[in-house]
């Protein structure tokens, strides 16, 4: 048991967050002969496969507001979101030169096309578009997904020069089950006592999980949860809100802080879904690939990047999140030009209207500087929620 304070743990997470050279991952790689690092983009990939191959999965969430984009803009028109250009910037500027592969999950056409661009720009690095099923019957989508995972695993075996056994996979599933349990514990803690574990801190702690080995990250989560429980922090008269739409391009950290400053306790969100995409433990007995596929099909989170086959279920995840956390409203925050988030938004808003849940909406970019308008909008929202609940 360590005795770090939340401040110390958050400071370490913040260092990792700000380090656009990914020093921690570089060090991990250098620490052992033949170690490999595989980068991946939002929203979800089965990191267990990479871990089982003895490699480090490294989450790349764009460049944020600290990266100066010099080359990236030459690849994208002004009406395309920021994350692909800052990711290209990371690549071209050599910040990802230690990465042995890049995975582009099936989230939208921008990331999809980026997978092809990556192949052209970095022909010597393994680049894969990772397709996932949008149909959820075992025999159809499930079989397809198992096939895709096996193909990916085969590629990893080639890169790593060794076979991955079922036991390797089971071990990795167990390690990630543990990590997901801790992430959920942190979410539950934040929903229960948001003043003890503010969203901006939780964000950094979860984000650290994208660059650290999972075992180390689980320890960080344990330490943070213990420290956050133990400390006494002042309770504010904030309103509890759920934030949605931030599943891909990340908001600047300042945006999350601004929401807090304007009187919000963010009690649930869709940041870095990869860290809790699979709900509940993936079973260890039986075929591990099959188990991962089953978890994906039947026990995974909802997001705009996913097709919802059941009209009645559309948007209910948001209502459930509000009920579970005791939130009083929802903030739709989407990256500018983000098709999935912005096309989904009217449908989700209709569901909230029917459920009588208030909401506001705004857009951001990963490099947004001006927080004043957002702060004002969120502040007004909080005031109206309070008036409404007092009435």
């Amino acid at each position, binding site marked *: 048991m360590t005795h770090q304070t939340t401040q110390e743990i958050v400071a370490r997470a913040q260092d990792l967050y700000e380090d656009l050279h990914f020093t921690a991952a570089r060090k991990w790689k250098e620490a052992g002969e033949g170690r490999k690092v595989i980068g991946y983009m939002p929203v979800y990939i089965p990191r267990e496969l990479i871990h089982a191959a003895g490699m480090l999965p490294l989450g790349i969430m764009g460049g944020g507001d600290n990266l100066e984009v010099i080359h990236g803009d*030459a*690849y*994208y*028109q002004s*009406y*395309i979101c920021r994350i*692909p250009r800052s990711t290209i910037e990371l690549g071209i500027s050599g910040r990802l030169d230690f990465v042995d592969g890049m995975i582009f999950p*099936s989230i*939208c*056409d*921008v990331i*999809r*096309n*980026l*997978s*092809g*661009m990556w*192949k*052209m*720009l970095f022909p010597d690095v393994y680049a*894969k*578009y990772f*397709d996932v*099923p*949008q*149909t959820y*019957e075992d*025999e*159809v*989508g499930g*079989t*397809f997904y198992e*096939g*895709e995972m096996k*193909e990916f695993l085969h590629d990893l075996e080639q890169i790593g020069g060794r076979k991955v056994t079922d036991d390797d996979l089971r071990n990795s599933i167990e390690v990630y089950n543990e990590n997901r349990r801790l992430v959920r514990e942190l979410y539950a803690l934040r929903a229960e006592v948001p003043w003890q574990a503010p969203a901006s801190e939780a964000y950094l702690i979860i984000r650290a999980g994208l660059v650290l080995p999972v075992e180390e990250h689980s320890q960080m989560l344990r330490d943070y949860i213990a420290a956050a429980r133990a400390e006494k922090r002042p309770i504010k008269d904030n309103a509890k809100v759920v934030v949605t739409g931030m599943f891909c391009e990340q908001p600047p950290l300042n945006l999350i802080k601004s929401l807090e400053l304007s009187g919000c306790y963010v009690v649930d969100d869709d940041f870095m879904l990869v860290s809790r995409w699979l709900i509940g433990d993936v079973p260890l007995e039986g075929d591990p690939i099959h188990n991962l596929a089953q978890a994906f099909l039947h026990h995974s989170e909802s997001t*705009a*990047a996913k*097709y*919802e*086959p059941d*009209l009645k279920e*559309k948007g209910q995840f948001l209502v459930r999140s509000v009920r579970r956390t005791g939130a009083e409203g929802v903030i739709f925050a*989407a990256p*500018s*030009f*983000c*098709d*999935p988030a*912005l*096309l*989904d*938004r*009217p*449908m989700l*808003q*209709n569901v909230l209207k029917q459920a009588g849940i208030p909401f506001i909406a705004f*857009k951001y970019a990963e490099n947004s500087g001006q927080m004043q308008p957002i702060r004002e909008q969120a502040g007004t929202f909080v005031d109206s929620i309070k008036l409404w609940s007092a009435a």
Partner: protein
Amino acid sequence: MRPTAVKTPPKEVIKDASMLKQKEMMARHYDRLANAHENGEKVASTFVPGNLNELVMCFDLVNNLPEVNAIQSGLRRQSGAYIMEAERSGHSEDVCTYVKSDIGMMAKGNIGPNGKKLPNPDVLLLSYTGCFTFMKWFELLREQYKCPTIFLQTPYMADGKVTPNMIQYMVKQLKEDVIPKLEEVSGVKFDIDRLREYLRKSAKAEDDLVAVLQSAKNKPSPIDAYFGGIYYIGPIFGAFRGTDDAIDYYRFLREEVEERMRKGLGPVTPDGTMKEEKYRLVVEGPPNYTNFRQFWKMFYDEGATVVASSYTKVGGTYDFGFRHDPDRPLETLAEYCLGVYTNRSLPMRIDMLVNYINEYEADGLLINSIKSCNSFSAGQLLIMREVEKRTGKPAAFIESDLVDPRYFSAANIKNRLESYFQMVEQKRSGKGAAA
């Protein structure tokens, strides 16, 4: 803002016989659609890429294409108001304007191009091919119409190849999900021989379409493969693939084009036959529909013919050999969906454009980047540089939107085109190598 166009008395637009035939076919189709429910017919809405018209016909369903409706609204200059309507009701200014045009049209009574109300669909056939927006679009329509929605996922051809896993997945979806659900909605039993028959007819028309598209290799090209090409693909990308009508139309069109070729004539434009072919271009990206005629005129006035385009491959890439195959009915549908242009990886798209420039002996590449279409637009700047590098031919980039008139700036586009043509000239005379 008011459009800047000065009002002049409408000039007679020159149409060739194939265009008139197509016009008659389309009018007939829209009438059938408008009267479908009165006539006891059911309607399936679906998309152009991954359009399973042969399968839809097996269930006696009438094919309704919201994308084509949006194009029609664009051409009729109604899309602007529809888009505003959708934005007023909460849709973002950032997203695909086809969707907003469709949703706005729905809000304003769903009046089709023939002035009659379009029927509510009885089923949404969500063929998810080559564009993420499709998925959200039909979720939005499902919310309105509350009708059964059938989903067919086409995996993305990211590595430039079709794997057995992809085909098996699609065939399974067709067998276990799409076909049973279509049977249920329509009350018609699936008959695979009927499907085969339609596929046979498709292949026939596809042969003639390819001959038409490839006639542009001739100098001068008897067709414009972008502005004119959009008319040529109409029937086969829409509700006619697999019908006798399509066979007749494409045979007729082919004869017409071959006749022009024999006579050494250039393409037919709205102002008559193009005089001199000065520039041969390959175009990537969809056109603008709100100012379609004006846009086209900027090309033919300068003697520029488009000899090949990627947009005319969104509903199927037939010129690289694919034909619907009646002997492998379900697999062929899968391969068709997999192969549409926007479902091809970026490197494949680049290969295709390079190939066009070489095969059609074009002067260069022009990209029309569409503001609201990520499927096409994300990556086009790299496409441009790569094609330039590999062909040594100049490329140019212009920006507009499909059906949102706010993003069509005639002056900007005209300027760009003029300097592009100058660049081509310089290149030809060997001066502007670094241009």
